[in-house]
């Protein structure tokens, strides 16, 4: 299997997968349940998600391990099972992906704040190291550090994955539009702030996920491209912003609506496009079709 960055550099535009969290919820995961524990207790259901994205035409799929770090699992008293849970996550996705497709081991934020002294840099490094190694050993050929809002935490996670595995490293942060029309993370980090620091820390691919709809991602990609013309860029966009209807939350963008922005996103310089919250295999199928037919 070639590296993702190699495929991108040879001119390919790639398709990533869609939502996991909202998919698990649709399968009956209740609020307050630990999503990652499903890797152990309901691996068949998790496999269904992974396989549905492969069948939809994704070139790469994630793992069900977003909250699989020591600190997140500690919320459920599962912090001693980091290795078991993350390995299982990667094994399930690898089984669905076969040998040809990529498996991106998902690593989310710890929820701990360096600036408040909740944890030290070393604590974070060790937590990310433990999770990344387990994902890699379970069969992930890339690690995707995602939904980051603190640049220090993102940098430490990239470094930990880079220094302790041979996986490709992807890092995406979550940006929202400010009242001034700029894009910033919750911690105030702009796409421009992110670029050099994350690449220097060892990321092969950078980008953005979650936060807003796919339309806003166009400006984010443009801003990244202004700072770096060559680094591969990956986008995982939500199916719009959540709307509450009859006791349920709905992400309103249809596959066709989302796909209508794919061309502009590619023209802005994105190399890999997939979905985040609210996207389904149908969204990915439509995005994959659009990417395939896209000509500049």
């Amino acid at each position, binding site marked *: 299997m070639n590296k993702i960055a190699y495929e991108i550099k040879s001119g390919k535009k790639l398709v990533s997968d869609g939502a996991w969290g909202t998919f698990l919820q649709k399968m009956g995961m209740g*609020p307050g349940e630990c999503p990652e524990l499903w890797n152990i207790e309901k691996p068949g259901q998790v496999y269904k998600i992974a396989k549905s994205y492969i069948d939809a035409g994704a070139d790469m799929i994630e793992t069900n391990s977003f909250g699989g770090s020591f600190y997140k699992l500690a919320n459920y008293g599962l912090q001693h099972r980091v290795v078991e849970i993350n390995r299982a996550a990667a094994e399930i996705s690898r089984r669905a992906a076969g040998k040809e497709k990529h498996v991106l081991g998902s690593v989310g934020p710890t929820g701990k704040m360096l*600036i408040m002294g909740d944890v030290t840099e070393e604590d974070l490094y060790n937590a990310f190291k433990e999770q990344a190694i387990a994902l890699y050993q379970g069969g992930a050929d890339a690690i995707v550090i995602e939904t980051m809002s603190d640049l220090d935490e993102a940098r430490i996670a990239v470094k930990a994955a880079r220094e302790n595995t041979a996986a490709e490293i992807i890092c995406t942060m979550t940006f929202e539009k400010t009242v001034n029309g*700029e894009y*910033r*993370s*919750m911690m*105030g980090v702009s796409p421009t702030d992110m670029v050099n620091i994350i690449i220097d820390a060892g990321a092969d691919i950078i980008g953005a996920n979650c936060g807003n709809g796919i339309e806003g991602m166009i400006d984010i990609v443009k801003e990244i491209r202004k700072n770096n013309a060559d680094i591969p860029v990956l986008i995982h966009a939500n199916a719009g912003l959540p709307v*509450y209807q009859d*006791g349920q*939350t709905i992400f309103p963008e249809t596959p066709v609506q989302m796909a209508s922005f794919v061309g502009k996103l590619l023209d802005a310089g994105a190399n890999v496009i997939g979905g985040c919250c609210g996207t389904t295999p149908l969204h990915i199928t439509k995005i994959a079709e659009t990417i395939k037919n896209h000509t500049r």
Partner: protein
Amino acid sequence: MEQLLGKIAHCVEFGKINLAAPYPPDMKGQEGADELTKKALEQGVSAEDVLKKALVLGMERVGIKFRENKVYVPQVLMSAKAMHTAMEHLKPYFQSGSVKRKGIFVIGTVAGDLHDIGKNLVSMMVEGNGWQVVDLGTDVKTEKFLEAAKAHPGCTLGLSALLTTTMGNMEKTVKDLKEQLPDLKILIGGAPVNDSFRQKIGADFYSPDPQGAVEFLNKLSA
């Protein structure tokens, strides 16, 4: 005295905790909220003036800047740290009753949701505005909110949710609480929440930012 209070307000606004704190870099080596508050009280400035003319003012300024996206979460957290450090010196005055708080605000993240950053920000801003805050933590069941609301008659309640899946729990909590305590004012917040959701579930107020919550509380108590 006014100058000293102005300095404390400045320390809170910019998150200067104490002399040793390296943040913000342009105030390195200067006294912070800690030392200046101590000094003010020793010089006979009333605790009430320290609260109202320094801490509340500094927190209000940072709250407004946060709403306008001129500062972000880290700056607010540092301001809150500076405010808390100063507040420690005021504790005896609260306990003796020589300074009164504006009222009681009970806050928590709804059942099923473990996220606390947004809740903590609101909690800090409200406390820094002179309210007593009872923080119930995360994953708070309706019964616990009810218990706290009964234990603190006249309090106002704040509910937080980050996950779209726990918005349903927020709705349930609001409905159950309103049924039992129709006069209880409830305000809600969180990334997926908005004002049309608030109307649907029957809560009293929604704010996209902590300062809005502070302003709503002050209007209620006015």
